[in-house]
């Protein structure tokens, strides 16, 4: 059935994002989504929308109530650790504080998350549900939650130390093996050789020896380690350039401090190891952008040991995350069923299903095709469209959704379009393209709420 009219629920003032407040340019990623929003008159799900208050204004308030609340709740948590009455427990606490300070909502969520994480065997479904609402402030949880969501850590807590040790040593081997240059390799291979001439002063001709397997630096043979080294050096140079350009405005990644340099070094190593282990896809520009938030979150883990092994953990989680999106980076697959073109078509379809008027206006009237704006949204998982902290929240939703990151990403992109529909409908090709390529900053919880709404199949 062709729908000419926009459905009523879409037309309510809830969906249009208000004029965004000028976000303060900050060097440190600070939560800046403080735009006040009208309390929606018909909240279909209970506490979700009120969380929009929590992120911005009450940030200062969160720290103090946190310790006292957590303290009081934790005693209850520990006693109920094994049984499943925790949900009843949390609703009691949530109901109790809901009428009070809005930040309490976020605190209770944090409490629930911490409680969930402290169980012996973590219930992944419950964790996903909690995480999809956004993982609040304390960065410590985010690192662990992401590791669980990406399948790096198994749900059974007791297996964590052995799994971590195994994976970390595996990464160490990869690193040593793959980052060695050919001089070192030949030296190791010939440790037993006795032809080493010492310059000890006794005159005489230097002894010559045969070259093993035709291995010399100018070798053009396919199997020559030297030849492979020089071929890889192009990729390594590309990786170097991209790593230096990652997030130049954030101190963690760029600048001259030894901290930033060591972080860049870690990013570089991870990307080189990945490129060498995956000769089919190697390195494509943009992978550094997907790697950056992962490494940032893991490196900032308050647990010392985890932070020190952030590089190894990030590598495996990066591989896991990229496995769903690999096809976007392979040029030969661009036009195929799994490639980026078909993903863009699916986004188009999704928009058409939910908001035909906007779709028609965008694609037919103003001819703004998704590949002009959504290419970057999809391949870089929205890291370039919002400020760093906001993109971490979006990734919370992306990683935790049971539908999978690809589907969720499309829904969020669709939501991004719908939120600015008033401006899009009023604009022509140039202004629409400009708006979508420089997407205005918006309230992230609101965006995620809209995206979630799109999950519901349309009623006729």
């Amino acid at each position, binding site marked *: 059935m062709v729908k000419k009219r926009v459905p009523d629920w879409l037309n309510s003032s809830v969906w249009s994002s208000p004029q965004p407040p000028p976000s303060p340019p900050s060097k440190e990623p600070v939560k800046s989504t403080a735009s006040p929003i009208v309390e929606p008159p018909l909240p279909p799900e209970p506490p979700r929308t009120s969380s929009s208050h929590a992120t911005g204004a009450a940030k200062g308030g969160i720290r103090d109530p946190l310790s006292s609340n957590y303290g009081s709740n934790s005693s209850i948590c520990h006693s109920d650790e094994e049984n499943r009455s925790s949900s009843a427990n949390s609703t009691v606490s949530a109901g109790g504080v809901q009428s009070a300070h809005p930040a309490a909502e976020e605190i209770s969520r944090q409490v629930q998350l911490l409680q969930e994480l402290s169980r012996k065997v973590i219930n992944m479904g419950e964790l996903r549900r909690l995480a999809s609402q956004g993982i609040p402030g304390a960065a410590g949880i985010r690192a662990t939650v992401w590791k669980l969501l990406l399948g790096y850590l198994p749900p059974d807590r007791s297996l964590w130390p052995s799994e971590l040790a195994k994976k970390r040593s595996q990464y160490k081997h990869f690193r040593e093996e793959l980052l060695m240059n050919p001089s070192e390799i030949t030296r190791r291979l010939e440790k037993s050789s006795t032809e080493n*001439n010492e310059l*000890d002063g006794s005159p*005489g001709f230097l002894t010559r*020896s045969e070259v093993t397997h035709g291995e*010399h630096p100018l070798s053009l043979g396919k199997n020559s380690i030297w030849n492979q080294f020089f071929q890889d050096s192009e990729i390594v140079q590309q990786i170097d350039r991209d790593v230096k350009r990652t997030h130049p405005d954030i101190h963690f990644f760029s600048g001259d401090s030894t901290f930033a340099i060591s972080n860049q070094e870690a990013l570089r190593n991870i990307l080189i190891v990945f490129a060498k282990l995956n000769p089919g896809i190697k390195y494509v520009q943009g992978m550094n952008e997907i790697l950056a938030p992962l490494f940032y979150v893991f490196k900032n883990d308050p647990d010392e040991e985890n932070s020190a092994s952030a590089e190894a953990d990030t590598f495996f989680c990066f591989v896991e995350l990229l496995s769903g999106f690999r096809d976007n980076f392979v040029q030969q697959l661009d036009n195929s069923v799994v490639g980026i073109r078909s993903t863009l078509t699916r986004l188009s379809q999704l928009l058409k299903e939910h908001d035909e008027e906007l779709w028609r206006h965008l694609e037919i009237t103003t001819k703004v095709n998704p590949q002009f704006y959504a290419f970057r949204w999809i391949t870089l998982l929205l890291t370039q469209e919002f400020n760093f902290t906001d993109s971490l929240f979006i990734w919370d939703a992306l990683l935790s959704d049971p539908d999978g990151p690809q589907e969720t990403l499309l829904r969020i992109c669709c939501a991004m379009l719908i939120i600015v529909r008033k401006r899009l409908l009023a604009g022509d090709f140039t202004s629409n393209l400009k708006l979508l390529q420089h997407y205005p900053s918006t309230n992230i919880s609101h965006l995620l709420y809209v995206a979630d709404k799109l999950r519901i199949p349309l009623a006729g």
Partner: protein
Amino acid sequence: MVLVLALGDLHIPHRAPDLPAKFKSMLVPGKIQHVICTGNLCAKEVHDYLKTVCPDLHITRGEYDEEPRYPETKTLTIGQFKLGVCHGHQVIPWGDLDSLAMLQRQLDVDILVTGHTHQFTAYKHEAGVVINPGSATGAFSSITYDVNPSFVLMDIDGLRVVVYVYELIDGEVKVDKIDFKKTTTATA
């Protein structure tokens, strides 16, 4: 891991038309960091060609070079090693190892690269190592007509040098290597 190419005595165009094709196919730009040339190129075009292989070119004057402004000797430091370059026609008797050792002490270098004899040699004595990369085109010399084209590639890695010797024997490229290391670090 620094790759240094050492070659010389090409005598292009007087005694040889060009480098052997097999050598040329191996000398691909982008792999080598420095080039040391003992001299007797002789034409300017050879200089330009060597510059395309690697922009960092060090060259000394041979007696038949057409460019008068190359220096007689040159010294440079690569990593922990000091290298010296001289064509060798100035050192009499030609190719005499003791006289070359004197030149090496005079220049105060660990590795001396000379040419003129068109024969590959690698010799060590108290003051250091003398390497003669031979003639890269196999041009005849004043001493002998029977010359195999050869050149040398040094891989300098910390205190260790691996010298790869490339020779064209009966139309085939033969590669040997020589391994040596310094026992003490260079003083600053």
